[in-house]
């Protein structure tokens, strides 16, 4: 018996050393650690502590923004269909109805002032190319704060995971496993436009919860450049809650069997433990005669 345990210890030790080497250690070498996600966006030139006035903001938003952006919840419909607006701007502009909830207020202010800079994709807009949304840095700081206050005032309190994904991600990304039959979860911007705009087709996100995993998605969505220097994916400025909802949605769609798996697993293990006990008892009874 002692000998068997010693042998088992050697087998287990060698297995664990090998496992450690090819999994945790190898992955730590291939994917160097990055700093945790920062949801304060304090490095951005945002509100700078100003409080906005939603009523003043309403006038500014409806005169400056609705030429391109819809705000369907407030009665400003889309002026063109997705394909036409993509052809006009390069990418389908977002509806602003939920922007005040999805995006961090400081980020939103910084984005309005200088979209390319705030989203950390200035490297894409060189040689006469410019971001499809013009910057509003010429406005007063207070006016920017007012617009942010207005967007926050019209944003819904609660959104489903799917609604967050649709508003935050689907202009560029498809997630076809969410609707294989009807195909409603394709990216709003047609492939050819988004390819021209981004340089390549942004990936379908159906399996990103599997291929990237929680930890990577958290830091990547928060700041893409941290993992992929030079990527065309903008920093989108999602609040922690919104980003958690996006990741939860990726999991609902990409790993829909998770709940079943976690429920069934322990049951399997209990049955197998019972099998192992009976097997040991049987072994004991059979070997009693031969020892």
């Amino acid at each position: 018996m002692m000998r068997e345990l010693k042998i088992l210890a050697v087998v287990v030790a060698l297995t664990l050393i090998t496992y450690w080497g090819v999994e945790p250690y190898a992955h730590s070498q291939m994917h160097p650690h990055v700093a945790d996600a920062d949801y304060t966006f304090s490095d951005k030139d945002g509100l700078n502590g100003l409080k906005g006035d939603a009523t003043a903001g309403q006038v500014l938003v409806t005169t400056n923004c609705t030429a391109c952006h819809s705000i369907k919840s407030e009665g400003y419909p889309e002026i063109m269909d997705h394909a036409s607006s993509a052809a006009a701007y390069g990418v389908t502009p977002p509806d602003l109805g939920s922007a005040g909830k999805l995006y961090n207020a400081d980020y939103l202010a910084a984005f309005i002032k200088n979209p390319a800079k705030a989203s950390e994709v200035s490297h894409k807009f060189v040689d006469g190319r410019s971001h499809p949304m013009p910057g509003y840095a010429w406005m007063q700081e207070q006016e920017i704060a007012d617009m942010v206050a207005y967007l926050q005032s019209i944003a819904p309190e609660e959104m489903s995971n799917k609604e967050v994904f649709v508003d935050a991600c689907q202009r560029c990304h498809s997630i076809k496993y969410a609707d294989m039959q009807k195909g409603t979860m394709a990216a709003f911007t047609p492939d050819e436009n988004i390819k021209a705009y981004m340089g390549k087709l942004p990936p379908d996100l159906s399996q990103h919860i599997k291929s990237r995993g929680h930890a990577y998605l958290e830091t990547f969505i928060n700041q893409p450049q941290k993992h992929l220097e030079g990527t065309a994916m903008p920093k989108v400025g999602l609040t922690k809650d919104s980003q958690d909802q996006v990741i939860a949605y990726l999991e609902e769609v990409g790993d829909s069997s998770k709940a079943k798996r976690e429920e069934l697993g322990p049951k399997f293990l209990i049955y197998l433990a019972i099998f192992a006990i009976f097997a040991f008892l049987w072994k004991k009874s059979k070997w009693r005669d031969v020892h």
Partner: protein
Amino acid sequence: MAKFEKADSVGEWLDQRLNLTGLNKVMMTEYWVPKDINFLWAMGVLLATTFTILIISGMILMMYYKPDINLAFDSVNYTIMQEVAFGWLFRHMHGVAASVIFLIIYIHMFTGIYYGSYKQGREMIWISGMLLFVTFSAAGFSGYMLPWGQMSYWAAMVITNLFSGVPIIGDALVVWIRGDFNVADATLTRFFMLHVFLLPVAIMGIIALHFYTLRIPHVNNQNSEEIDFDEEAEKYLSGNKKESKVIPFWPVFISKDFAVLGIFLIFYFYLVFFHYNFAMDPVNFDPADNMVTPAHIYPEWYFLWSYEVLRGFFFDIAGFKAFDIGLIAFAFANGIFLVLPWLDRDPAILPAHKRPLFFIWFWILMADLIVLTVYGKLPPTGTNAWVGFFAATAFIVIFLVLPIITKIDAKRRGSL
């Protein structure tokens, strides 16, 4: 024709025609196994069980899998993983079993090496076992291509490309294997055929051969004691069970196997449910894309040691191209275990701890294989490349010195 009496029961009826009682004795109740064994002797039954799991789960997966580059990825990751009831369970079972079976194969193999169970009459056991290793490797590789993810595609690209190193016919050989100039639909469908038909059939045949090769030389034991199986069986059958050095396969030997199997299955199903990423690489959940090379391409863990022998030779030596040296070393690594019985020049069968130099040799080999495995996954740059080079060189040297050190062991003992 033999005369048949009227049978009194179905069992007797069958017995008259098939001699089931005789068969049961030969295969089970009077198939003798040494008593002096430890749990490492249960690996055969663990492998048979894991292989059965692979066959059953594989058949179920095949009902929904579509071997077509446009459909394969979604048929696995959508249809099987999310739509079919328990599809995810069978996919996890299949993927994890494919990985775990290699762990058990390696334990089985190194048990054989440690106890010297490959020589002096047991060569065919060893050779048929190594043939199983080769066919299982081919099955693992071909199966890994089927989900048509990024790693499926690029591993297939890298490995099939190795054949271009074969002199003269290399390039034509690569095209012949792929069925196209690139890894493409034709490659997927032929690897599907290999994976679900030719290789499983070959494996089942070789398993039968492997079992049969045990019949005449018999299974080795912990102290490599030479046993007169007929005499010991006689003792056992006459009721002298405690003194007999053998036990019947059924039920005594198998009862111990089942106990070990119980523990193994808990471990295996824990992995299936809660810890499967090691066997189902995240990179492979990106669909295959021939325009985007993954940042790191590596094979499954069980191929890493030989992969590292291949890429360990990363610079030209004396006019020989690095690629060619690596390829020769790779061929050496994959072939050398097959001739192990003839590299060991010690005529005695003994466990490694009774062979002083061989004992050291064995643990150096184990250490080198682990180093090769770990560095086979790491990016081959800087120090890593040199560790790979030295570990790969060491691997070759380890086998070159085996005949010498086994001879010295034998001489010191007085066996030569």
